[in-house]
């Protein structure tokens, strides 16, 4: 069962305002964090390495491996695909995503009663953090939940490899070759 709706891949400006103050605290930013940032692709177009690492963890929480079907966000390097998808977005949207990731990393554990960084938690704890955003009484936390969730799910289910599990047989037109396209989007 599903709900038809064009994705709200949006990170509202007020989410930037709400968490922007955090970035003023020395050392309180994604950039100081991930030890595995070295794994980030060198050709990221929108995200920086720290954001890419964290988005990978967030995407893994929204679309984990296993369960109803095996494929998950990590199997398809969803963070890199999202990076490509975001090319051409408004600057405010991209700043909003940065702010939303910052909020998830530092704020969502607090919202679920934990003193830790989101990216250091196990899968169950991370799910609890995301649920806490969804169920929060604070509008901006719910909006961050909605924006990041829809970005991850829209992008994941746009990947051909996800379709067999849901019974979708894909586009009817022949898939155009990359060389025939003018730019990344029509």
């Amino acid at each position, binding site marked *: 069962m*599903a709900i038809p709706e064009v994705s*709200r891949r949006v990170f509202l400006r007020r989410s930037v305002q709400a968490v922007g103050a955090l970035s003023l605290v020395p050392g309180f930013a994604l950039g100081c964090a991930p030890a595995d940032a070295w794994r980030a692709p060198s050709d990221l177009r929108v995200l920086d390495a720290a954001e890419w690492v964290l988005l990978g963890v967030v995407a893994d929480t929204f679309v984990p491996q296993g369960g109803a079907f095996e494929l998950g966000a990590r199997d398809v390097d969803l963070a890199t695909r999202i990076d490509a998808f975001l090319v051409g977005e408004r600057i405010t949207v991209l700043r909003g995503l940065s702010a939303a990731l910052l909020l998830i990393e530092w704020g969502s554990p607090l919202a679920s009663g934990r003193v830790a960084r989101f990216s250091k938690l196990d899968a169950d704890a991370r799910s609890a953090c995301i649920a806490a955003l969804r169920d929060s009484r604070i509008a901006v936390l719910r909006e961050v939940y*909605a924006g990041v969730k829809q970005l991850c799910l829209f992008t994941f289910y746009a990947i051909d490899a996800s379709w067999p599990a849901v019974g979708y047989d894909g586009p009817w037109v022949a898939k155009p070759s990359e060389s025939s396209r003018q730019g990344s989007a029509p």
Partner: protein
Amino acid sequence: MGREALRIIKTGIGAVIVEGRELRTPVALRTHTLVIGSGAGGAVVAHGLATAGVETVVVEEGGYFQARDMTQRDEQMIPALYRDRGQQLSSDGMINVLQGSCYGGSTVINTADCEPTPAPVYEHWRRHYGLDLDLRELADAQARVFEMLDVRAIDASQVNRNNAVVLEGARKLGWKAGTFQNNRSHCIGSGYCLIGCAYDAKKGANLNYLPRAVEAGATIYTDVRIERVVAREGGGFRATGSVVARGSRTATLPFEVQAERVVLAAGAVHSAAILDASGFGRERPALGRNVSLQPQMSVAARMPEDIIAWRGIPQSAFCSEFDDHTPEHGLGGFRFEAISGGIPQIAAGLAGFGHAHKEAMVHARAGALALLLVPDAPRGELRFTRDERGFATRIDYPMTDEWVTRLRRGLRAAAQAYFAAGAIEVRFGSDIFEPLRSVADLDRALDFPIRSGVTHFLSAHVQGSCRMGPDARSSVVDLDHQVHGVAGLYVVDASIFPTSASTHTMIPVMTFADRAVRRMLARGV
């Protein structure tokens, strides 16, 4: 770049479509009539003027796409064809305001439903907004539009299982229901109407009005954004803007048109933004106000059998039992209409995340989907801001208690219809509302919570912002679509409607556009 750097590269030429990427130098044109926007309004105006021999230039901010460009992939076509890459939102983040932004505008990405303005709405406008419209004139205009679009009833054989469920549920409850008229022919039922038809089966303005306008001599520029229109000393207008990059919509080259007449047809958000940026709002307090979004909410039922909602015509059936259109309030009540989108859209809209979401997606084949449409009073307001992609208009939209009550009644009714058709459970557009699991559960819909971030609406019929009326203090354009006090400047799109014109707005916009162009020609301007 200063104006002196511009040069007139074309004047009086026609019968051509020019894409922005073909332009290498700044552009300055002279023409008689400039039409800004190539959707339902602009296309009809351009066709009408060009076929009457008026030198006409059309500019369209979006790109030029043909059937062969439609890849049937949401992640490519939504950013390419929709305004703001499909993510234009109300300022509270709850309503995804969908508008086409491409050659042909929303007629390329709509559901192809052809629903005229109901008679009580015209009477409502006459009584409350001073629109003493000639209904015979409008009927003639609508007939011409229907002929051009080749409007026809959807055949029963084209009603897919997803739409049939709505009809079955309504029939079992004894409720009024039916199928739409549409502007498709030779449809093969691929199901990708909302991201552009790859088979030219949906007869949008890109396949009739616009090519015929070009045949008659019009010139169409795509990938061009007009941002200001100012009156020139001695008459006429100077419209300025930019050629924009496909995709990012960032400015690449200056673009200027000098015209005797300008027709704004950029849609209910952008026509108002252009007028505001041009300074026409100062003496017209109604500009940007009285916006109707006619929000819709998804209703999704898990059925005991496969539905495969994404194949076939996405929207062919509706339940109109609760339509309540009166001269006193115009459109009213609520209705629900089957719908589907692509798998990525379905996934993004489905409640939950993690393993629970994956489990739900495995059952997507059994999902029956509809939109509950609840007509609204025009209480929205636009606030005009800008960024690197041009206009970044804020859409403020308050929901009234009366509207929310009607919404909840509508959700209950739609769920009732689905249970009558055999649904196992019914969900609404919410991340926090537990699904209804039986008829005994229906009244929970009457407490449906509205919370930003976790309650999701969409709007496909944004209207208002440049309301038509006889008084410049309460409206923006007169009954001939001309901006009050500015001879030669017109608005011809959904922004002129005083209240919601119909449950689907393509036909009302085209009908008024046909009427508008005939009135322009009759004036001899």
